[in-house]
């Protein structure tokens, strides 16, 4: 098997494996979407997933270096901006800018 066809096969398999994970809940639950338990889970997964995603991002940070300090600083900037102005774009931009400047100089 040539290198290119191997690569293409990998792409196809990965695309299928990824698509299955994204498609499954829609196929499995589309008939039951009015069930109270499902509605309940659907209501509370986004806040839980958002908490987990933030924790996941924090997990990758090196806290014993300056990076950790900059990260927390940028996070504080993002949160305070958002609580004060409540403009998502502005808060994200401010936090990211602070982090980029801090890490690059």
């Amino acid at each position, binding site marked *: 098997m040539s290198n290119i066809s191997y690569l293409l096969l990998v792409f196809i398999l990965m695309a299928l494996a990824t698509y299955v994970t994204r498609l499954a809940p829609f196929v499995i639950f589309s008939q039951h979407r009015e069930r109270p338990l499902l509605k*309940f889970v659907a209501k509370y997964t986004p806040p839980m997933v*958002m908490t*987990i995603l933030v924790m996941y991002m*924090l997990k990758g940070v090196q806290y014993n270096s300056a990076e950790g300090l900059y990260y927390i600083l940028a996070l504080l900037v993002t*949160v305070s901006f*958002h609580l004060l102005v409540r403009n998502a774009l502005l808060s994200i931009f401010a936090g990211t800018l602070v982090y980029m400047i801090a890490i690059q100089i």
Partner: protein
Amino acid sequence: MIRSVIKTTLPILFGFLPLGTAFGILFQELGYPWYFASLMGICVYAGAAQFMAVGMLGSGVGLFEIAISTFFLNSRHLFYGLALLNSFGAWGLRKLYLIFGLTDETYALMTTIKVPKEFNRERYFLLITLFSQCYWVLGCTIGALASSFLIFNTEGMEFAATALFTVLLIEQWLMVRRLLPFIIAFIASCISLILFFQHMLLVSIVLSIIAIISLRFINYKKL
């Protein structure tokens, strides 16, 4: 509508562009032509899995193993659809594409934002998904093409993803106004960080869902 969608997805652009570029640079080291990096962004479209695949392709791991690892790495998506069952409209090509393009970032956006009243929700979501994938493919392509002469230092730009999730977390709090799901998810993440560092995302989501369902059964009225 396009202007509004671009504004909404700008944080995703900031997140995907440097990450995609990093992927493209890494992919380029495997020695394939640059357009295969773009192709992977188009047909696989899964950030973490694409990074993992570069490592596996480099060490010549078997096809089956790559497919299984991809499945498990993305298995958190099994729970993402739950909150969007009613958001993607009727079955059809559009819905199939919306599901294909469901990433952490688009999930976070689509479950949190309010679509402006003047726009059709499914079309709005379609554009969010399409634009986000374009940003990702663009990043992959730039990285694979221009790995040697990057004009702009994007170091640190990946913070945009953290900032996006943080802002959406605050928005979720303002919508839900109940501490419980956040506390459950926080405890679940701490437990899985300690016990299952590598698979933290999936384990935390499963633990949280089990916990909140159990609490509902124990104390039905309060939730």
